[in-house]
């Protein structure tokens, strides 16, 4: 089976098609940025982009992504390594504590901003509620998204 992750096609050979995407990414492709937290679609640590939409990968069978574009946290920055404004906001606002949830948080935020570059507070909450942060960094996550949304609103979105 072949899947496309971060713009690269990977041949997975004879993999069990029911293997969740999460474990394919982590164990087979060594893309360990996507995390395991609950395995039952409750915490959002395993969130990836599937054709640009946020999707929890822990219960999602790999066979279902055969024709899709998967983007993981490793594929968010530009090919030359330049960080997105959202990633930079995450760093500037010192969002993380333990950091374990943050890949999933960033992916959910990325999906939101792709669809809706200028979300309201309530739209941010609705998009981010699937992602748990055990350390309680919600305020900073919200502020980081807000910062990019505000930039988008005032048109300084430089690309």
């Amino acid at each position: 089976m072949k899947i496309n992750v971060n713009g690269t096609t990977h041949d997975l050979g004879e993999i069990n098609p029911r293997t969740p995407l999460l474990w394919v990414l982590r164990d087979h492709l060594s893309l360990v940025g996507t995390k395991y937290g609950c395995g039952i679609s409750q915490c959002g640590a395993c969130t990836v982009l599937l054709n640009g939409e946020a999707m929890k990968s822990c219960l999602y069978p790999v066979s279902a992504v055969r024709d899709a574009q998967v983007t993981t946290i490793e594929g968010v920055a530009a090919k030359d390594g330049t960080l997105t404004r959202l990633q930079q906001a995450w760093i500037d606002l010192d969002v993380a504590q333990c950091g374990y949830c943050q890949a999933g948080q960033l992916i959910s935020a990325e999906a939101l901003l792709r669809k809706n570059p200028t979300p309201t507070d309530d739209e941010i909450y609705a998009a981010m509620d699937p992602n748990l942060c055990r350390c309680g960094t919600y305020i900073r996550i919200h502020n980081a998204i807000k910062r990019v949304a505000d930039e988008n609103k005032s048109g300084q979105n430089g690309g």
Partner: protein
Amino acid sequence: MSTLNYDSVNEITEFFTRKAQPDDATRNAHIFKLDRRQFLKLTGIAGGGLMLGFALSRARAHADHVDFNPNGYIKIDSEGITLYAPNPEIGQGVKTSLPMIVAEELDVDWAEIRVVQSEINPALYVQQFAGGSTAIPAYYTPLRQAGATARAMLVQAAADQWSVSPSTLSTELSQVLHAGTGQKFSYQELASVAATLPVPSPESVRLKDPKQFRLLGTRITGVDNEALVRGEPLFGIDVSLPDLKYAIYQKCPAIGGTVQSANIEEIKKMPGVVDAFALEGTGNGNDLFPGVAIIANSTWEAFQAKRALKVEWDETNASKDSWSAARKEAARLAQEPATQIANNGDFDAAMSTSTATSSGFYQYHFVSHAPLEPQNCTAHYKGDSLELWAPTQTPSWAIPTAARLTGMETSQVTLHQMRCGGGFGRRLYNDFLFEAAAIARRSKSPIKLQWTREDDVRYDLFRAGGFHQMDGCVDENGKVTGWRNRFITFAPGGRPASSMNGGVFPGGMVDNLRVEQTALDWAYRCAAWRAPNANVFAFVVQSFLDELSHAAQRDSLEVLLEVLGEPRSVGGGRRGRGMHTGRAANVVKLAAEKAGWGKELPKNSGMGVAFYYSHAGHIAIVAEVSVGGEENAVTNRSGENVIRRKLKVDNVTVASDVGPIINLSGAENQVEGSVIDALSTMMDLSITFENGRAEQTNFDKYRILRASVSPAVEAHFIDTGEHSPTGLGEPVFPPLAPAVGNAIFAACGHRVRTLPISEEGFYLG
């Protein structure tokens, strides 16, 4: 009824209470009192550093190739300046804040340094663990001395080059400057020469006047933040090695059960399964429980095999714990006098001459640590050595047990400390690491043991539930004159999970005070959970004080300040580490002022105040909430009918006195996170046990708070300049629940006495 051994859990808990002493900083400074021979040896050990004897000759020939490595925290070489972060990073920010302290005294350019996690080396480091909010107090002075020592040597090296007195030189942004001539040397240029100088004793180097600090007290973003947003491997769970296999370990769902039989042959035939076998366990519940290990080619195949695994458990000695039975028994015990722990003045006389009294039965459920990264450990057993990669809060303590379990000397065991996806106290205990070591011993390939979330909750060392029958009174002036706290705790393995003492608030502040304690039999392990003891005691005592304020028909803030009284040291602190009522009153007043205590609020809104002292931090919180009307009746976990009511926490104002702040951004993050964690925990977190089993094992039933209902948090800090810094990972947690509870009472007249308060019908909206 249980055969488990809990000694080391209690020892660890005791260790933290004992260890968390600011004066340990001075005591631990001994690490730097090295003579020159020891220094040579240590710089060799520290990794990358050349032996100095060799360095001397090389220094002349290839000046740029010699490392300046004066202690375990600093290395300056041709690559640049590296600072070593000695302690486990669990989200409390020490991988950034500890190196900041070194950087301040060393006068380096923060933007250009590199921070690297240290290896485990008891000879080099003060204390390589994360617990008890002790890193900052224990390391503050030693790290300043480490930075200042290196700086003094670099200055001396420059002085020698220029033949001037060191006193004519200054340092700034990784450079030594000579004001007279305008000449400068970079630290890197000086490193080889500095490496040849004797290391001055730590006491002899001059530390900066804190007023001169340029870095400490500013906002610095975490050193791993860029790696985190790029998804780079940092955590224990991220370890990958050539030929790595993946393991699970199935233990009895009722703790203490042993393996009678299992369908191991069937499991071995499953796709991807490499091996499966039972392990007997050691009889010590803190290293290895009996269970069945499965090793597979991938985590998913190991998980699938775990699902197909059928084990017959012998539950003769397993837990029979029942939360509902314990609650019933506690309600009965609440009516009977128990063992007196403290008895000051005459409580009964105060009650009989009082003007008003109050009485309440408080209770709190068990909770799980549930760090978001489930326990895991990678282990490689090579016959004559064992290599481990683990997200642990106590890396240095793990090594001896891992060695014992695999029949090695401690010198044959290497442990790499990995970033931890949350700790909260769970990773003080290394049972997962010992399992990994025991499984690796049976495997040719390295293995990564992965606990499922369900494993993680079931085999947690829980924050114990508990019960308090509270009684108290006020006199004709509305002054609190009598206070009795009858505490009913749990005793896993016969030892109380937590202990009351006469110093618990308002010990030393109310004249007639009695503390009683009794304990219920229990099998499940209970242990340190973020701000141990304080995380629940604060709720009980600060809510009950509020009850007495209302009984006296007085303002809660006024009564709290009156109880605190004249500025003095009180409470059960050891070695002068107790609470100071003056510092307490100052944070209370600041929180009240910033929150606008007493201002006009909309109907159904209210403010509550609470103070607590723990982990050397004085913290006050004012919460402002609004409460919705009564809705439908629902059945709670305990089978009682309760009326649902919507709660909104509008604002939380926190005033903290933890001495000077190291990293302001990190400190604010800890305050925000502690408030959200505490609110999450008080709202709906509960582990109940029936039939010896935990009834909630994943986030569907253990519902951690989500973003949309998290409150606005304001953080204020007091630094009078008289105190050295103390930790902030824990002390903000305790006063949040009583502040919210008291605000609920102010808003709607309902007194919450149960944690989580969803048991009384409240939900966040």
